[in-house]
């Protein structure tokens, strides 16, 4: 399956949803990443995706898109670029330690249980200097016992 089909399939989009892009670049002028010196261009992302260009793998949005939907808000067709960026991440990038811990918490408890996340990510947090920040930023830390919720089998696919 070509890359674009895989990504569109994950995002739940069809090719036609992207063909409507007018190329107006409103998305590129509005993207918040440009304000902090990261050259982000959602329009190029869409074009590289449609054309199946190798540049897609190096697109700064893959790493830095915050998913704020400002591009969608101002797009004449309201194309949801962040949805496609997330799908492209899943298809192209190895999963991040945070995503792994997140998924694993969902598998175990059906919810995100923060003490478990902290435990799983301790080496990562230590290496990246998060611990000091979390002491300042977390308003409270609830050490309740985790609850295993009935999930009707929706997490089973995670175990495949």
């Amino acid at each position, binding site marked *: 399956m070509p890359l674009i089909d895989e990504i569109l399939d994950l995002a739940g989009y069809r090719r036609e949803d992207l063909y409507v892009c007018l190329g107006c670049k409103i998305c590129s002028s509005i993207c918040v990443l440009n304000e*902090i010196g990261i050259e982000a261009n959602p329009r190029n992302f869409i074009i590289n995706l449609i054309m199946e260009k190798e540049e897609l793998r190096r697109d700064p949005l893959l790493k830095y898109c915050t998913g704020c939907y400002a591009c969608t808000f101002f797009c004449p067709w309201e194309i*949801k670029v962040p949805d496609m960026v997330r799908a492209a991440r899943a298809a192209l990038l190895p999963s991040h330690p945070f995503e792994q811990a*997140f998924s694993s918490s969902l598998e175990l408890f059906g*919810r995100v249980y923060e003490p478990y996340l902290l435990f799983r990510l301790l080496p990562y947090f230590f290496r990246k200097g998060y611990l000091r920040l979390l002491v300042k930023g977390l308003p409270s830390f609830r050490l309740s016992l985790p609850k295993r919720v009935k999930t009707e089998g929706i997490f089973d696919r995670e175990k495949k």
Partner: protein
Amino acid sequence: MRYAYYPGCSLKGSAKGLDEGVKKVFSALGDELVEIPDWNCCGAFEFGEKERILALSQANIRKGREVSSEIIAPCPACLKNLREAADSSVSVLHPLEVFSEASFWDRLPMKRDLGGRPFTPYYGCILLRPREFALRVRDPMEEIITRLGGKVVSSQVKAQCCGGNLFFKELEVSERLAKKVWEGASGDIVTFCPLCHLVLKTFSEKGRRVFYLTDLILYVMGEREFL
């Protein structure tokens, strides 16, 4: 009014203050919030696969419908995911939409006001975008802050991204975005999002604070001594 309550994972952990705030305000209004039994995580923005995100929220909608046809979801990420998965049998509401009803002000017990103190209202991204899942009322936080006796300042930063989604992945980018929000704001920031709260508090300057909107309401109700 009896609502099904979907707190979401953050409100059960680090955003405990928002959880308690929302519950207290609703109870003061005479409304009942019944937590959806066995609700599961909405998946936030951590999965690239749309189908999986939808499946998680569809399960929550099924469980919520048993309790009430009106589901309250305070966390912006949960709200978006639930709205995306909801069908016509339920409506998913944000507390700000309930607080914008005319009867809110008749029912809210007010013991004091905010004394003209300046606050920057800050919605962040997901409460305002994408349009189809966004808040269905206009400028609710501005209205509430004003009617509680506070002064709304710097409302131009209200929709600017704080980089919250990158906080655990690209710390440095998230820091730069959060600091830009602080630069554009004046005085303390008022938000309704657990992630914005975490990131803005982490990168706040000395002496400047982040509040949940419910903190302000609780103060005015006399349920909270200091602000």
